[in-house]
């Protein structure tokens, strides 16, 4: 176990180094010019002033030099200064990450629980109308792009029914000190829902397949022959055997969750990490972009790690496998 963890740690460090090098190279290769993005299309900046900006940002140096000075600073815990917001990258990430985390966390739990319940229900009632509805529902959702789903929710619940606001994380025009928890929830529902809905389908369909496999095993047939009810079969044999794939799927889903969160945040103008990454990317804010990429890959990595560890804890048979 300890050896495993050490290997994992080495893996994550190399992953982060690789990712940062890749990001630096891609940005260097793209026609994107942070100086252009900063001074805009209508500046009277003279060549001397442009030189000054380049010097200020260090973009006059070669990409390798830039990378090394960035990496040196990072080793001292300094993520650099965002060019767009002119404030420390780490501060921006901190404030945005919390918002995103709440969004993703809620969506993650909701989609996991509801997906699992739906999958179970479908499997136990295989072939009946409820199974058909759940299946149809899941297939439809799985083939739905997340931003489209967001827009539908926006049109139905915000524009037509006016139950929810069209965007932002707090009521427009309200001072921060007056914003109540319930207001935040109110603004939170639609993006969180958008994000949850798609995750539901995935978990539901996988759980359904797994449960059907379980129901077809000999021990379940034997149990049924002994006269165990549906509930007893589910309780005694179903949960333990089907929860593992559901859980590992849920943790491995972190990556998709992050990608989905980016789109949902964009649709609902929800100020999280995803929408910040989009802005940073479009405006060529390298330090901010690399910072977010590193943090989010750590996040995805952590998800996969937890999935592995949980698997081993829940299922003793998996111990010893690397």
């Amino acid at each position, binding site marked *: 176990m300890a050896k495993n963890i050490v290997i994992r740690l080495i893996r994550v460090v190399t992953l982060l180094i690789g990712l940062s090098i890749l990001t630096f190279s891609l940005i260097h290769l793209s026609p994107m010019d942070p100086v252009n993005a900063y*001074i805009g299309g209508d*500046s009277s*900046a003279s060549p001397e002033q442009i030189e000054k900006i380049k010097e200020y940002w260090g973009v006059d140096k070669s990409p390798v030099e830039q990378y090394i000075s960035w990496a040196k600073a990072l080793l001292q815990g300094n993520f650099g200064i965002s060019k767009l917001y002119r404030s420390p990258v780490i501060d921006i990430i901190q404030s945005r990450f919390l918002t995103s985390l709440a969004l993703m966390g809620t969506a993650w739990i909701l989609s996991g629980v509801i997906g699992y319940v739906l999958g179970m229900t479908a499997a136990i009632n295989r072939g009946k109308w409820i199974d058909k509805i759940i299946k149809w529902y899941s297939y439809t959702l799985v083939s739905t792009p997340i931003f489209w789903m967001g827009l539908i929710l926006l049109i139905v619940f915000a524009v037509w029914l*006016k139950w929810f*606001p*069209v*965007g*932002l994380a707090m009521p*427009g025009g309200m001072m921060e000190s007056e914003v109540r928890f319930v207001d935040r929830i*109110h603004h939170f529902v639609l993006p969180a829902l958008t994000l949850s809905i798609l995750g539901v389908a995935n978990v539901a369909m996988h759980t359904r397949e797994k449960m059907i496999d379980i129901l077809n095993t000999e021990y379940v047939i034997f149990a049924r022959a002994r006269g165990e009810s549906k509930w007893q079969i589910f309780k005694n044999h179903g949960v333990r055997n089907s929860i593992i794939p559901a859980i590992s799927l849920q943790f491995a889903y972190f990556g998709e969750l992050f990608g989905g969160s980016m789109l949902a945040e964009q649709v609902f103008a929800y100020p999280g990490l995803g929408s910040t990454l989009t802005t940073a990317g479009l405006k060529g804010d390298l330090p901010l972009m690399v910072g977010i990429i590193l943090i989010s890959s750590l996040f995805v990595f952590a998800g996969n790690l937890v999935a592995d560890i949980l698997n081993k804890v829940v299922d003793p048979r998996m111990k010893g496998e690397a």
Partner: protein
Amino acid sequence: MKKNRNGISKSLTISYLAIALSLLILLTGCASSSNELVNSSRSQNSTTVKEDLVLAVGIMDGGQFDPKKGWGMTQIRLTHSSLLAIDSDLNFIGDLAKSYTISEDALTWTFPLREDAKFSNGEQVTPEDVKFTYEMLKEDGIKFDLSFVKSIDVVEDNTIAITLNEPRSTFVSQLTEIGIVPKAHYDEHYSENPIGSGPYQVVQYNEGQQVIMQYNPYWYGKEPQFKKLTFLLLEEDAALAAAKASQADIVYVPPTFAEQKVEGMTLRTYESIDSRGIMLPAVPSGGKGLTNGKEVEVGNDVTSDLAIRQALNIGLDRQKLLDVALDGHGKKAYSLADGLPWFNEETVIEDGKIEAATKILADGGWVDTNKDGIVEKDGLKAEFDMYFSSSDQLRSDLSLAAADQASAFGIKINLIGVTWDEIYLKGKTAAVAWGGGRHHPYQLYTMNSSEQIDKGIGNMSNYHNPKVDEYLHQALTSSSLEEANTYWKLAQWDGETGFSGIGDAPIVWLVRVDHLYLANEKLDLGKQPIHSHGHEWALFGNVTEWSWGK
């Protein structure tokens, strides 16, 4: 995973989703009482005088209320005051300065300041604050070019004098765009708590979400009816959704959304000087140059021929372009200054003349000898690339329509949609869908003076005409605005030459975009001046005149 979406109609999906989702919401128990709260703030206007407005007029990422970071142009009217301002008839009037005088040699500008100007924290605006602001921006030199300013001095107790290295008639426009910041409170964290002397003060800024502004009780001007402004920082689509959900009083709309009907809101159309045209390289290929400090290739053999540029100017039908690309929400443009005091009326022509265009081409040696529909000259086909920003719907529509029309008189334009970064790299070798338009003539200089070649992106054409340079220089260094305007007009067309469409036409200007807003029908936005380039903020110049009718 298997996919199955055949046979499911969209409406069924929506209604089914609606039911399923409402169930989900009930499960999570979130449909709470805060609806009333949002609604109550929206419905109180029937009983009391409405004092707050919710606006969704675009994203405000840049600037952050700090002139050093780019807070300037039109948006400063809300939070900052400047030495001068522009009224709705485009006259330069005093703001912080009571008036201004220019010395005989046009080198010294003197501004007696008003005594009653205070910052939103109650402190007096002093000449030292003005001096500090200008010196700080001159030193920084990125967002405002003040390199021609020699010194800024406080003379007498409440008067400031700015001395220039050389006369500069366009300095007057910068005086309207530079917001004064308090010397005592300005540092790198100024954005977090900006203090200005405008009619409003920023009370809350949630990055990426909203800006809340409240009336500045120390404001020296006319007290506005609206004491609180909330700006929702939403993209166009989301802004329209906010309007439809009656969560905003004003939203800005692109022409493609102009036909959208929103209950209780009316479409407001404002004429603008926000112009679009085609920038054409004026020199033959093979050269090298700079764009924003990067070395790029320069020149195009086809567009550097004057006949090609003039044929486009007279051959393209501006009214049809307006109808196709803007649904008619705009005006024809013949220059970067149509209708403004420095516009030369002689450059207005009858356009859409295919025969005239063909004749200009034939006179210039361009004839279609091999009958392929494209004219040639010395074996060179009249064919060139044209770049447009692919994220800009208007520019791509306009480019398509223009290319289509140009083929009627034998010019083939190949359209390439890319990002601005790529346009800056390749733009000096090909045509570009260009834009601009200000309340002052400085862009006439930056886009057409040979002194601006290789500086920034102003003169992308690498256009050079000694006569025009002379007029531009005279306009720039004039000591009075009237004199300057005379030279601005001569630079466009002096009867023989000029940079306008009937002259050298380095940029063929085509249309001016109307600025469109959906605003609550009860809201009166006062007398709006002709708007400038930069859709989002043009509206606020007269914010203190806005009122809410019953």
